């Protein structure tokens, strides 16, 4: 594989390697945090005693790595590069050179972010949301100098990279489809990537602008986000009269659709896998596709639900609460569509299907607390507590990562020509599922007890904190188990790539074109999920076969 390959399949695998590197670092950082929270005065091996700013730097880099470099890259850029052109019957991407530039810029952004921890002052400490003035003034804390600058540079490069990548993906979906690949014949993953690429174009552009404005506040004497007479560390730093709330609006206009960028590809993939492994067509295909689009569109107008207690006008809070409640409707339609597909039973349960079911479980459990947090009166208690941490780790992080696992197990034959080991896969699934719930579900209780995020230890005036220590300890042990279980996965990937069972053509008896194995030269004449064609329920009609349906 040459280094700057424009081959989209190689790029897809490179994206997955990058996401793997980021997820390994991000997970190790989270384990340091978990251990420190339970034993705050113990020296941690290879780290030593942790200062408060160290903990905040860990939170910041953990969140940034996971959201940007794992959940944005792997489900979208990784898998889409791997299979999207094949799924729509295209021979290549629309703009291969733009695509390759997107990947290498992403890699540079990753290196810049990682490097930020190694300079004077360490990494930024203002969280992945980087609210000013904390993020706008170097004197506001250690890490807010060069560390914060490098964070901004990294995210700026990342925005540009994702923007390029999305331009290519959107052009490919719009312009490179094979003859006969109509909108109603697209696999659901393609619908998801269509929506995420449009969201990426819209919202990463806004984030890039916001990052540039913040950088300008720090270095070019502007004052977009810093109010007049702002006093930080004994110095009056406000020059003009900017508004910190402006940053919150710009950031969350990006930040909320970002959640859908992370999870929509998983929804598309889950739909495909449920159809495949239940051997059923997707009920109400147009509705299911339409709901993905509806989630994307509504996702652009819900950002204010992150700001109910930010000082935003309470009437605006009501408006955002209603749009947020509205977005629960298409999500519910999707879930009920999946449940209806599963209802008839007779499921095949290989590892990719197990992970898709795990995705569904987390999407339900984590998603259902969404309508609760969408109520400003309740969010006014739960905002920035561990309840929210539980919510987004279940619905975004765990659902997202389970969809990535499902994708890796499912498409592994396309990457290596071999099938991953099923026994190890099932072991990996069950330990991961149980440990993930053990890690993130109890955080709901900590949140209800009022425990705020970003606290490096449970100490102080809050009398409910001591009672949470056993819960916190359980979460830490569970997190260690969760991380350890991933060694099974890594071992399975390495061992199966080298010595795994050689995959037959179309090993999952799938219908979509990435499994055509070079057979398709004809126009597409059938839908993406034509299973259960015979009364026995075992028939299927791949999109690369032109045999008429009546036969």
């Amino acid at each position, binding site marked *: 594989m040459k280094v700057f390959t424009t081959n989209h399949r190689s790029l897809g695998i490179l994206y997955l390697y990058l996401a793997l590197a980021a997820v390994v670092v991000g997970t190790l950082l989270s384990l340091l945090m978990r251990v420190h929270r339970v034993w705050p005065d113990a020296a941690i091996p290879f780290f030593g005693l942790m200062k408060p700013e160290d903990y905040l730097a860990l939170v910041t880099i953990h969140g940034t790595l996971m959201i940007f470099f794992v959940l944005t890259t792997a489900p979208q850029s990784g898998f889409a590069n791997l299979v999207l052109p094949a799924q729509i019957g295209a021979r290549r991407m629309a703009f291969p050179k733009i695509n390759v530039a997107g990947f290498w810029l992403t890699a540079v952004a990753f290196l810049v972010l990682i490097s930020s921890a190694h300079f004077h002052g360490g990494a930024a400490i203002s969280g992945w949301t980087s609210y000013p003035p904390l993020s706008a003034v170097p004197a506001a804390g250690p890490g807010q100098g060069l560390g914060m600058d490098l964070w901004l540079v990294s995210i700026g490069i990342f925005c540009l990279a994702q923007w390029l990548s999305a331009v290519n993906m959107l052009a490919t979906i719009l312009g490179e489809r094979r003859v006969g690949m109509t909108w109603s014949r697209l696999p659901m993953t393609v619908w998801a990537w269509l929506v995420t690429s449009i969201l990426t174009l819209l919202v990463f552009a806004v984030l890039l602008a916001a990052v540039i404005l913040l950088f300008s506040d720090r270095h070019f004497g502007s004052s977009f986000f810093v109010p007049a007479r702002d006093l930080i560390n004994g110095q009056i730093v406000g020059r003009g009269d900017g508004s910190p709330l402006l940053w919150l609006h710009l950031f969350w206009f990006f930040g909320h659709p970002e959640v859908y960028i992370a999870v929509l590809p998983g929804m598309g993939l889950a739909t495909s896998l449920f159809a495949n492994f239940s051997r059923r067509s997707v009920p109400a295909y147009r509705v299911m596709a339409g709901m993905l689009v509806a989630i994307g569109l509504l996702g652009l107008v819900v950002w204010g639900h992150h700001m109910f207690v930010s000082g935003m006008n309470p009437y605006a809070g009501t408006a955002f609460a209603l749009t947020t409640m509205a977005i629960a409707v298409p999500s519910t339609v999707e879930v009920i569509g999946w449940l209806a597909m599963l209802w008839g039973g007779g499921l095949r349960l290989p590892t990719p299907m197990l992970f898709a079911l795990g995705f569904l479980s987390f999407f*339900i459990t984590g998603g259902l607390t969404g309508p609760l947090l969408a109520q400003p*009166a309740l969010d006014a208690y739960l905002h*920035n507590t561990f309840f929210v941490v539980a919510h987004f780790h279940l619905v975004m992080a765990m659902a997202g990562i389970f969809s990535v696992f499902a994708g890796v197990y499912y498409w592994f034959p396309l990457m290596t020509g071999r099938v991953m080991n099923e026994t190890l896969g099932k072991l990996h699934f069950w330990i991961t599922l149980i440990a993930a719930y053990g890690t993130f579900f109890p955080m709901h209780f900590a949140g209800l007890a009022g425990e705020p995020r970003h606290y490096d230890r449970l100490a102080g005036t809050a009398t409910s904190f001591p009672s949470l220590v056993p819960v916190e300890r359980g979460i830490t042990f569970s997190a260690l188990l969760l991380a350890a279980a991933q060694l099974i996965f890594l071992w399975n990937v390495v061992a199966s790539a080298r010595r795994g069972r050689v995959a037959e053509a179309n090993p999952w008896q799938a219908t979509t074109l990435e499994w055509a194995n070079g057979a398709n030269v004809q126009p597409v004449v059938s839908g993406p999920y034509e299973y259960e064609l015979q009364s026995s329920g075992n028939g299927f009609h791949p999109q690369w076969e032109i045999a008429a349906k009546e036969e």
Partner: protein
Amino acid sequence: MMAFACLMLDGARVAPLVPWMPPDGALRGVIVDRLMFGNLLALCIAALIAHLWVAFAILRRRSATNSFPAVGRWLLVTAFVAMYVWMAVTAQRLWAANRFSGPSLTAMQVEVVGEQFQWYFRHPGKDAVFGVTRPQLVNASAGNPLGLDPRDPHGADDVVSSVLVLPAGREVDLQLRSLDVIHGFFIPGMRLKENTVPGLVLHVHFTPALPGTYPILCSQVCGLGHQRMQARLMVVSPAEFNAWIVGRERTRAGGSDQ
């Protein structure tokens, strides 16, 4: 159970409706708790049913020929939409009651100021007017953490405290400010949270009902001391409050004479 018992000691007289939540000391807090309980119950039931559904589908080894009827799907969607509408309407009514209308005209005025990494609380004193503050005069070690301007006579009787002392049963109108970065003003026991934002003065109002001590936390990451940016709310009887504030005013008056 142990955990639950510890929470009960938190100045509590009433067991909280939702397990894990600290006891509620605010007049209207019980409405929040009831709503929280109803929501959590509905969502737990929905999650449980969905998981039983998936378990049933997995255990159903033989594939059924008839799929789940479309009308059933739409009935389920309708039921959920009804639940979301119920949630939106009830929650909006509470939100409107808490935030759309201002406090009563007799509400007590207290200013809350957040700065890295300390909360300060200011009562306006006998004249009921807060004195002017200037950031360039802020000097905590010289006893002027808020930058009160000595030239403003309204400031002479202002009482600045690092403990929020309030009388039970009287509505309070809090003015929230920040000197430096965004902080989050959070009193779990009063079911109250609002950020303090530099450049803005934000108002929230509530009525502390049950005397006791309640933790005040910072809920918005504000720098390396975020975790220790905690304070206490002491809700006392009106008589005790009067004794406290008169004592503080006298101390301050004595201090300015010297």
